[in-house]
């Protein structure tokens, strides 16, 4: 068993207690709304609370009052974050310059997400992709679906188009799971319980008929992981009736 040592004494805030929603304005500039639940962590009431939004080398910081008196700032416009992308959020609890508690890499909900989703697994970014329609960006702290903002009606297609869903999302599930299990060789026994990889594996395991993912043991055959990933993709398609959706969309179009 691998143990993690915490030499700094700072505490970790569960992401489930910190909700963020990003809204895109018509001019492309976003703002956010935050819901912070800090009760029950025995944090000093006079400790300051800061929310930081960041993406790439861009960063903004917002004071949210103190633990005992949380105050959302009037202005939460993300005008220093490049338009089109989804920023991540960080919450810091600070006293005399020291970090008492922190939660990092919080993925916000966006206007393109289903508001009923409790957890945002896949934020969507609308950016200039040249001639590419979509791609999955796995290079940052979490997977992001990037969609070409230059295609007319694409925002609506991402939200409601059955063809887009049928053709794109199963492939995303496959790519993400392959990245977690084959590229990163991730094992949830040693990692942050609510990091994005753990959330995705739990999402896959909750699909009908999907077992626990194969162990991280290097001796576990690669094929086991491949089979497990394909089973998860099949289960995803079964749960969301992907074939039926795709067919019905084609029939509507005739």
């Amino acid at each position: 068993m691998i143990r993690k040592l915490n030499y700094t004494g700072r505490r970790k805030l569960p992401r489930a207690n910190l909700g963020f929603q990003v809204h895109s304005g018509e001019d492309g500039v976003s703002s956010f709304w935050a819901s912070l639940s800090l009760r029950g962590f025995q944090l000093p009431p006079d400790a300051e609370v800061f929310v930081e939004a960041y993406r790439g080398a861009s960063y903004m910081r917002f004071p949210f009052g103190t633990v005992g008196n949380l105050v959302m700032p009037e202005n939460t416009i993300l005008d220093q974050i490049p338009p089109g992308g989804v920023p991540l959020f960080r919450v810091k609890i600070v006293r005399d310059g020291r970090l008492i508690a922190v939660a990092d890499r919080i993925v916000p909900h966006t206007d393109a997400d289903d508001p009923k989703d409790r957890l945002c697994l896949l934020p969507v970014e609308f950016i200039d992709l040249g001639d590419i329609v979509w791609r999955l960006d796995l290079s940052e702290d979490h997977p992001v679906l990037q969609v070409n903002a230059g295609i007319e009606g694409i925002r609506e297609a991402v939200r409601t188009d059955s063809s887009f869903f049928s053709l794109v999302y199963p492939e995303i599930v496959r790519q993400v799971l392959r990245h977690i299990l084959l590229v990163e060789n991730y094992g949830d026994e040693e990692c942050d319980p609510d990091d994005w990889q753990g959330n995705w594996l739990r999402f896959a395991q909750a699909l009908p008929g999907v077992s626990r993912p194969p162990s991280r043991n290097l001796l576990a055959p690669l094929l086991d992981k491949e089979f497990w990933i394909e089973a998860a993709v099949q289960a995803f398609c079964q749960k969301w009736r992907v074939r039926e959706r795709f067919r019905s969309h084609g029939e509507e179009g005739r």
Partner: protein
Amino acid sequence: MTSYSVRMLNDEGLVAFRTYLRGLRTGETTSPPREMLFSPRQSEALSAQIAIEQRAFRSRIDFCEYISDAFGETPYQLIEGNANLWSWLSLFYFDQVCPLRSDGSRRPGMDYRHIPSRDYRYRHRHLLEGAYHVYQMYGMDAALLLCSALHNENSFHHELAGRQGLITNPFIINVATDLYYDIRHNRPKSGAGRGKAPGALLRFVDVINQLDMTFDLFSIQPRRLMELLPAEFDSWKAR
């Protein structure tokens, strides 16, 4: 000196500029396609009037000072993130962002040094826009990062500007400048940007990242931050 109205390369212009850069990388020695700068086929007018001159810049910060003045009151949205505009400027000043070498060749490096990348991880690497972005945050206090020639991204810009936790924190930039900038000679102190020498730039990045685990570095004033640095940095403070 003749002044020119700033324009933007259009899609066709960008493709042609990329092709030219690719050609240079494969050993071609043709002249920059300057005709595109004012050709309506490959460039278009900006909605604001900005006049610039073809002048020589001593450093990236010198360019930033000049172009900021030239931009004047131009709306921020027309400048920030406008890849077509920054690509045009790169072509306009191409002899400085990609100077001719003694053997007649040019070494352009990656496209993103001349055409801003769509990928935000490389956006700050554009030689002009990346410098301007830092200058917008810190003005002349960004000298440590921007004191190099226009075609040269120095190690301070390279290591600090790509890390949002560092480049966006004025206290960290202030401390790095105090440690490593030689004010008398307007350049980094000798050896400060190279290797993992005790207390040099790469160690600074490591140590700041460690401190960031314990402290909120946006709440720590530069003096206190300097005190938190281990003894290996003392020699840089004294120089």
